[in-house]
């Protein structure tokens, strides 16, 4: 009887495994090597990032001196990475309140009054400046220019800050992923355009992972007092861009007084 487990019979399998193993190792190495790193060996997330949604998906067409932004023949603007949105699921006691706020969004949505959109509604950072021990997230938002400082040196959340629109963030590294936990929010922002209110106990965890010239951003909102389960947003992928952000001009709403019905506002970011 032929022994199928002789060294000679195992050789092709071993070679195959070795080959694939080597290929996998090389592939992983190439992937890791593609990540720019800071002096301390951490992935360098620094850069200006086109997050593929909101204002960033404008892809204008130019024809001589003429410019088309929307409504162009053949399409002038295409979204890049707008994934199917997910919806926070609320505890049954709060479903009616969310539905009511959603219906009256024009009257109630804080972001339509030019306040900071909160986290995670503000979306991925438009720019990151990173150094050993901290990362700074910068945003050129319709509501204004915003920043978030993310210490990564192991310090705990501060205990003496007033609750705020963008909260208090601290970060740590899990392998090559920067994990940012943010707490101490006020309750004056929504999670989405659709009446998704939250409490001051909101806790948001963002995970940022860079490859060569892309940045993946995943966020999860935890607010067990009102949410039936943690809400994980659809992953966003931002691309490195050479279009620098600038100071946001003043946000002064002049539209809402002219609204004649409850037509929904969608505010992609």
């Amino acid at each position, binding site marked *: 009887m032929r022994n199928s487990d002789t060294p000679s019979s195992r050789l092709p399998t071993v070679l195959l495994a070795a080959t694939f193993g080597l290929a996998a190792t090389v592939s992983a190495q190439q992937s890791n090597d593609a990540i720019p790193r800071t002096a301390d060996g951490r992935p360098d997330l620094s850069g200006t990032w086109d997050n593929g949604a909101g204002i960033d998906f404008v892809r204008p067409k130019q024809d001589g001196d003429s*410019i088309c*932004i929307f409504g162009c023949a053949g399409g002038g603007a295409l979204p890049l990475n707008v994934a199917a949105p997910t919806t926070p699921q609320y505890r049954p006691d709060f479903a009616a309140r969310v539905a009511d706020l959603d219906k009256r969004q024009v009257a109630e949505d804080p972001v339509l009054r030019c306040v900071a959109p909160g986290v995670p509604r503000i979306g991925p950072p438009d720019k990151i400046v990173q150094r050993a021990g901290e990362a700074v997230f910068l945003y050129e938002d319709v*509501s204004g220019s915003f920043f978030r400082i993310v210490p990564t040196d192991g310090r705990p959340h501060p205990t003496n800050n007033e609750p705020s629109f963008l909260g208090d963030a601290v970060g740590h590294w899990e392998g090559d992923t920067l994990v940012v936990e943010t707490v101490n929010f006020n309750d004056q922002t929504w999670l989405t355009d659709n009446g998704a209110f939250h409490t001051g106990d909101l806790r948001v965890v963002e995970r940022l992972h860079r490859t060569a010239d892309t940045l993946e951003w995943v966020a999860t909102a935890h607010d067990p007092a009102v949410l039936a389960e943690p809400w994980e947003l659809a992953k966003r992928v931002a691309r490195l861009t050479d279009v620098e952000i600038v100071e*946001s001009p003043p946000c002064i709403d002049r539209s809402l007084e002219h609204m004649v019905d409850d037509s929904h506002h*969608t505010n992609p970011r």
Partner: protein
Amino acid sequence: MATNKLLVLAALALAAGTAAAHHSVAGQFDQAKRTTITGTISKVDWINPHVYIYMDVANEQGAVTTWRLESLPTAMLRKAGLTSEMIKGGGQKVTAAALMARNGTPNLAWLLNLTYEDGHAYTLAGE
């Protein structure tokens, strides 16, 4: 998965349609009341969430009325390479296509496009 693709397509269509206006154009402007006016642009308020463009329009008797044309957020215009000075067009005559305000506010409209006397045009929103 087909369902997911449909959802994505729906999201894309939604985003493309609504982001052009930042908010719902339908709630403020009447898509059935399109107007065309010709004049000169006297001022641009470079503000968010909507840039406002002021156009001086003279009637046959020479009386000038200033229209307020609401447009996109500043970053959209900037990323398209537009500046307030470009929109002013150096004072040359310009024709605007726009949608009138639903609540009857006179001389307030949602800007669709601008076509300048020298032939170049800026298309800012679909009709």
